[in-house]
């Protein structure tokens, strides 16, 4: 009697175990260490620790979904927001994890993880990065810009700026920081802090469109600031003359951040197409840059490779599954497309 029951039990356990054993753990391990030509930084799902760094090698056509994980045996963390290469190092800014991962641009091997955290280990939310003469400048959502010595990888100073600073850029040897204030929506910020790069202090604060979030510069000394505005107001473009630090104009502009290449800036329109902006004439073209009929579900970021003239557009699709990146030649014809991670927000090119 007892044995019969035990047999039943054991049989059932065996079934359960055999089912457990038959799942397939698919892991892709590349044969040899690839070198990347192109990185796409994927923010990941909202709040989740699944930011990834997709890499692509032009020659071998090898696409690696998370090159950072592969190189370091650990993930980037939560909401990676910006990536840039400066000198021989690549910097990956991870918002919720409160880190800047400094890595070798060719191998993505970690050089140092720089923490931007409070005493209780909560993140100060690093957002974006820019460089000038050996220093990296990182906006922190707690209303500061951190100064990081790129040689020693130590933080040398925090410069107080406006609320929830977003992107930042250098023009005419000055640093321009957009203060978004988006976390207090609808009571948003609307300023740009101008930082003197010798004294590392804010020397002037300009009023721009409401809730600014992006900044770009051209070779003529103009600084372009994109603002979301507060609904139902329309998005705005503010142009600052960096020679005089005066706002030249604030206009309604139904398009996103500029990807600058020479006299042309590429941007995503509110209709999800790609248009160009003439930086010399300060005028938007009315025609779609894409000439082969390619369309996007949710165009997310546009970047140009200044060496080749190619234009890259990422598509976030439904914002919670894998996206795509499309490469176009300078005539707007699609060259190829690649699968990225979730919310592909930033792209960098490795010159080797």
């Amino acid at each position, binding site marked *: 009697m007892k044995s019969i029951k035990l047999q039943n039990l054991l049989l059932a356990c065996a079934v359960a175990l055999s089912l457990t054993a038959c799942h397939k753990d698919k892991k892709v391990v590349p044969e040899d260490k690839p070198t990347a030509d192109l990185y796409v930084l994927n923010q990941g799902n909202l709040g989740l620790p699944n930011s990834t760094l997709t890499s692509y090698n032009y020659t071998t056509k090898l696409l690696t979904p998370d090159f950072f994980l592969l190189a370091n045996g650990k993930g980037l963390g939560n*909401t990676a927001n910006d990536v840039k290469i400066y000198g021989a190092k690549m910097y990956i800014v991870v918002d919720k994890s409160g880190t800047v991962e400094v890595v070798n641009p060719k191998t993505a091997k970690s050089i140092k993880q720089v923490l931007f955290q409070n005493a209780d280990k909560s993140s100060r939310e690093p957002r974006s990065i820019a460089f000038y003469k050996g220093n990296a400048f990182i906006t922190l959502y707690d209303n500061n810009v951190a100064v990081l010595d790129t040689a020693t990888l130590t933080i040398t100073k925090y410069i107080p700026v406006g609320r929830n600073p977003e992107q930042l850029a250098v023009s005419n040897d000055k640093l321009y920081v957009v203060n978004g204030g988006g976390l207090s929506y609808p009571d948003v910020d609307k300023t740009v802090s101008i930082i003197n790069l010798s004294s590392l202090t804010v020397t002037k604060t300009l009023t721009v469109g409401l809730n600014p979030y992006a900044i770009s510069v051209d070779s003529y000394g103009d600084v372009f600031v994109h603002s979301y505005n507060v609904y139902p107001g329309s998005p705005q473009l503010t142009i600052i003359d960096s020679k005089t630090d005066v706002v030249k104009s604030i206009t309604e502009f139904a398009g996103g951040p500029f990807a600058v290449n020479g006299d042309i800036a590429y941007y995503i329109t509110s209709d999800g197409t790609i248009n160009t902006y003439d930086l010399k004439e300060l005028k938007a073209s009315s025609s779609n840059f894409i000439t082969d009929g390619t369309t996007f579900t949710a165009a997310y970021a546009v970047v140009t490779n200044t060496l080749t003239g190619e234009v890259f557009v990422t598509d976030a699709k439904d914002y919670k599954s894998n996206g795509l990146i499309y490469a176009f030649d300078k005539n707007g014809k699609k060259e190829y497309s690649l699968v990225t991670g979730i919310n592909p927000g930033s792209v960098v090119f490795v010159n080797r």
Partner: protein
Amino acid sequence: MVKFLRVNFRSQLSLIKKSGLFLFFTLPIFTSNVVAQSDTTKKLDEVRVSSSLIPQRQSATPIQSITSADFKRTSSYSLADAIKNFSGVSIKDYGGIGGLKTVSVRSLGANNTAVLYNGIQLNDAQNGQIDLSKFNLYNVEEVLLYNAQPAELLQTARAYASASVLAVKTIRPVYDSKKNSGMILGIKGGSFGLFNPYLQWKQSFSKHWGLVINSNVQQADGRYKYHESRDGSDTLAIRRNGDVHIQQADGGLYWVKSDSNKFNILFNFYNSKRGLPGPVVYYAAPTSQRLQNTDFFLQSGYLHRYKNSVSLLFNAKYAHSYVRYLDTGVYNTSGFIDEHYRQNDFYFSGAVSYDIVSNWKISYSSDADISNLKSDVYQYAFPTRTSLFNVLATDFNAGKWRLQANLLNTYIHDEVKSGVAADSRSAFTPAVIATFKPFIGQNLLFRAYYKRTFRNTTFAEQYYYAVVPRPLRPEYTNQYNLGAAYTKSFAGIIDFVNISADAYYNHVKDKISYIPTRSPETPSVVNLGKVDIKGIDVVLKTGFKTIDNWKGVLSVNYTYQQALDVTNRTDLYYLEQIPYTPKQTLALNAGFTRKQFGIYYNEIFSSSRYQNSNNVPEYYLPGYSVSDASLVYNFIAVSKPVMLSVEVNNLFNKSYAVINSYPMPGRSYRLTFQITI
């Protein structure tokens, strides 16, 4: 990227809300419970097996149930644990004692399962999902899961309105001539710093009047260790901010003239403060989010079955819920987000059934519900929703055949104080159920059903941060089921065997889906998605005869599910399995009792899943197998019945997650001491 971040907060909040954070209870009163106890001759089509164990019912649509006597067999603490073994069920468990736990039946999502508490739906107009972790089991008599709907005609119209129904029935007063009062005192404690004293008082005042009062307090720090390898640390981390502080009380006053004439009035109060640990954050501490819920409801029901073949059932309910969400780690001007939500729900239901002839019944049920929600979130709409449910149903018995059919009309009308109200909706949705018993005297039954359901948007989907009005359509599901059930008793060692198998096909159209867009101008809730679901549920249960005071039981539930995204051929995930849906799950429960001792073992196996629509290696979540064990000892001390138990969850200390980035606890223990006086 401000918006991205903002949305980020919003999505966390939304998760919270989904977590039942906002939940608003309503509760029960008196309906199918009462009905089930009725003494009328229509004793349903249930064949109860002579066993205390989850009997397999031979029903028109699949029913699975678990009674209070069996909660210990599965080492269950909350309602979510009690139904974890059910076939076709997947519990979305965010981990820990205060972690959100919702149920998805046959891959249709939590919003498509109604939770009836003593026959009345728990209505959450804000989120439409019930957090099962909020329900302790100490006052629960039985939990049943009905695919499609309960078969009884005399029930609320709302009971017909969902793709499946999870019915919770609470403990009733006993009308025992010898003893007119009883009290159970108990205390549970163990891992997670759990301290949980509870009390149950039953009193009968006369032949007709009885009272049940339950109360309990739960305190826990909610901490547990988990294994995290993806941040490179490869060590045990501690899950924090999962503390709970809960006070709960419920009770009912019952008047029972006969099983055909009864009345009750019930109340339920729930107050909790808890931390929301959120997803795991690598390298940094998560922000500290807190949630407070205060829920109250009062409900009453009256049933009368007249001798002239007419039966009436009335229910009424008022529910209020208050939710406060606080996040103190925000870099806005105030330094925190502090949101408050107050929801009121007024509900009335009337049902009448009539026996035209002895084997043909018809019924009509009509429900009205008014819900409103007030909140201090930005540009909130302050919606008031009027919902009307009207259903005509019939039940026809013809020898070997039984046919049931109903047609439900749902009418929904919203009004808002600011912004734009959603369009009014009206929809007719039918269900047809057929059973066939080929052999008289044998418990073999074939069944088939078709049911269509309509799910309107919740307040959160329609109005939460809807800076721009959201033009949403309702979500429709179609269910087709074909199955068989067989019960056999034996003369030998095996006492009985119950087996049932059902194959089903579900199609979901216009699935309402949250998408985290980056700007408020873009709708963040859309009708996105079609899903094709094919599955098989198999339920096997056996009992063994008592020999030398030993008695054994064994049950096995198996589920196969293929749930494919068929939204758009151009999607990267077209024809791939939807997230968090294992192809196979197997639940095994075995136990022995000998005199006062019981020892039980439970194991759940889940095959691998993907945490994302893309079925690619990066999103692969390995399968898991988790075991629980319990030991129960009943004895008499100072002439009072005493129960001692030890329960162990995750016996082999497996590291796993049901939801990615929400790690589950390792091995945990719970001790219970209970005395009946």
